[in-house]
């Protein structure tokens, strides 16, 4: 117990250089405080809180660009890192949440009970803070705190419409599942700590390196399984996906949209970081541990995509349809994450791990705009007509041509059809899987079949909008929301045209701190301690 006096004697005071790398998070915290104080100055605080949150998010986004990637690596004694991947994710996340706030103005704002705004935005920004921290953790304690900081506000957001029965049920299912999976995850992490005596993931003496030197054991597998349970819940990987459609249906639409991208993306980035640490510490050699992990993640991804797509077939509600579609997309991305822990590619000169990270980041960027656009249109239609049923979208091509066009663009992009960026994202996925060869060809086949399956239910919505006729009155959507939807559709086209530079940008940011990605075996094996 000789560490106790040391811990008490030297209080840790981070200097400005340490804090600077986390300026986006600090801006978010400032925005939370500002939102909480707003009702003292404004009579009707809902809209004012929305604007305050928007300003805070913009400031955080600007600070992401200003601070950029920080070369010094770990921060706060190794609790957090600010590496290229986390910076890229923070940029995406903040852009997305700005879109969500704009969406809130045009969908839920008029019906929200006056005075609920401060709470709503505190929770929204708090969850955003947790999700951006999830991308920067390199310590098990920080991992748990970040995951819970993202989860707890999400539970409340899901049931935010207090008088709404479906909202209460959604919140109940979410919190029941969340509490169980997070306790399983923490139990597994306690086993990791017990096995290796440290909470650090990266670095010398960290978990990843100790696992590399000591090899696998039953307890280690238990710990890894429970970590996948906890993160699988956030990603909504099958079989931890049951909350997803219910929560999306019960929650108000901007919350559903928020969870569909932010929660999944944060979980994926965190999973990528942990897997990358494991893989790089073992020098990307095909050790049994890494091979099994790769197979596990690949199979999980294939099952997730298949279950999501087949369950989407029978959906009558647009929010449930988008929920199952988001499960399917999480499955595609999980397949790519399995490449991270895979050894060198078939082509020896290809840096497969970085390529996989790049593909996931690009996919997330595209997925963000497709989902934001689709949910925004669904929210606008729900606001004007009060319906979420797909059958009620009949004649939308005539009743609101702009909305129908934007929704069609987003849905085509979700399938992965050429005029939109979803096509490039899908092609990237296929290409990366093919580079690896061996049984990853099976994954290529599974994703190919899934894409064809998904065509049916996405196009069914478009068919209802354009071919089914109805005598209902035309719809004039809220201009702000319509603007968000149009911008999303335009960005999807733009990202297809400019996919080269954007792909290069994702590639530029596809590096993790403390992880040797570019050299596979030579340097790493020499740096390991002799047995």
């Amino acid at each position, binding site marked *: 117990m000789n560490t106790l006096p040391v811990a008490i004697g030297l209080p840790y005071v981070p200097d400005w250089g340490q804090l600077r790398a986390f300026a986006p998070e600090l801006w978010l915290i400032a925005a939370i405080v500002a939102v909480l104080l707003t009702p003292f100055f404004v009579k009707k605080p809902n809209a004012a809180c929305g604007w305050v949150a928007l300003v805070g998010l913009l400031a955080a986004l600007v600070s992401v660009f200003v601070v950029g990637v920080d070369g010094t690596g770990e921060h706060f004694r190794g609790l957090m890192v600010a590496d290229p991947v986390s910076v890229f994710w923070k940029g995406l996340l903040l852009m997305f949440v700005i879109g969500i706030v704009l969406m809130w103005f045009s969908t839920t704002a008029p019906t929200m009970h006056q005075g609920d705004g401060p709470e709503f935005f505190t929770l929204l920004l708090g969850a955003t803070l947790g999700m951006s921290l999830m991308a920067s953790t390199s310590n098990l304690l920080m991992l748990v705190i970040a995951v819970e900081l993202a989860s707890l506000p999400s539970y409340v957001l899901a049931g935010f419409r207090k008088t709404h029965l479906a909202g209460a049920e959604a919140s109940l299912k979410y919190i029941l599942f969340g509490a169980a999976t997070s306790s*399983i995850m923490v139990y597994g992490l306690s086993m990791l700590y017990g096995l290796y005596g440290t909470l650090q993931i990266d670095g010398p003496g960290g978990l990843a390196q100790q696992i590399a030197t000591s090899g696998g054991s039953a307890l280690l597998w238990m710990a890894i399984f429970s970590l996948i349970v906890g993160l699988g819940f956030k990603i909504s990987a099958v079989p931890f996906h049951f909350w997803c459609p219910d929560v999306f249906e019960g929650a108000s639409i901007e919350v559903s949209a928020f969870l569909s991208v932010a929660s999944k993306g944060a979980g994926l980035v965190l999973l990528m970081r942990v897997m990358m640490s494991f893989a790089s510490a073992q020098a990307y050699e095909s050790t049994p541990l890494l091979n099994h992990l790769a197979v596990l993640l690949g199979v999980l991804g294939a099952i997730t995509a298949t279950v999501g797509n087949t369950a989407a077939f029978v959906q009558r509600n647009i929010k449930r349809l988008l929920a199952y579609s988001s499960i399917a997309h999480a499955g595609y991305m999980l397949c790519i994450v399995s490449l991270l822990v895979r050894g060198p590619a078939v082509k020896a000169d290809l840096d497969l791990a970085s390529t996989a990270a790049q593909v996931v980041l690009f996919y997330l960027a595209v997925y963000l705009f497709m989902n934001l656009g689709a949910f925004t249109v669904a929210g606008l239609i729900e606001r004007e007509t009060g319906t979420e049923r797909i059958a009620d979208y009949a004649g939308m091509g005539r009743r609101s041509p702009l909305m129908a066009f934007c929704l069609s663009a987003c849905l085509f992009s979700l399938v992965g059809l050429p005029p939109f960026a979803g096509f490039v994202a899908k092609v990237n996925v296929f290409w990366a899987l093919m580079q690896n060869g061996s049984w990853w060809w099976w994954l290529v086949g599974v994703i190919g079949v899934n894409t064809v399956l998904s065509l049916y239910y996405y196009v069914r919505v478009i068919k209802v909008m354009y071919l089914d006729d109805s005598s209902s009155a035309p719809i004039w959507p809220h201009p702000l929301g319509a603007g968000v939807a149009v911008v999303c559709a335009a960005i999807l086209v733009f990202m297809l045209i400019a996919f080269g530079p954007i792909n290069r940008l994702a590639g530029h940011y596809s590096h993790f701190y403390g992880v040797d990605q570019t050299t596979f075996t030579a340097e790493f094996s020499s740096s390991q301690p002799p047995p």
Partner: protein
Amino acid sequence: MTELALQHYLGVGAILFVIGLIGFMTRRNLIVMFLCTELMFQGVAINLIAFGRYHQNLAGQAFTVFVLVIAAAEASLALGLVVLLFRQKNTLDADAWRELRG
């Protein structure tokens, strides 16, 4: 086996965790279900403290403090939600809430 060793603490932690997990899956009363997740978290806490003592560092105890805070936060949220749900349907049965499906 006269002295308490690491495995005894781990045993208690595992038993608490498993009781919580089984209770969570079999019981349908909302309050009991959330109580069971609390049990699971307490099993984790015992594990962490035992390992912290075993490895002679403070990381385990520090982790425990945070685990307790997280468990408390989750419990307060859950109990608030239970009150809300009870007011609407006058029952604590989890099976009463099954409108969302498909």
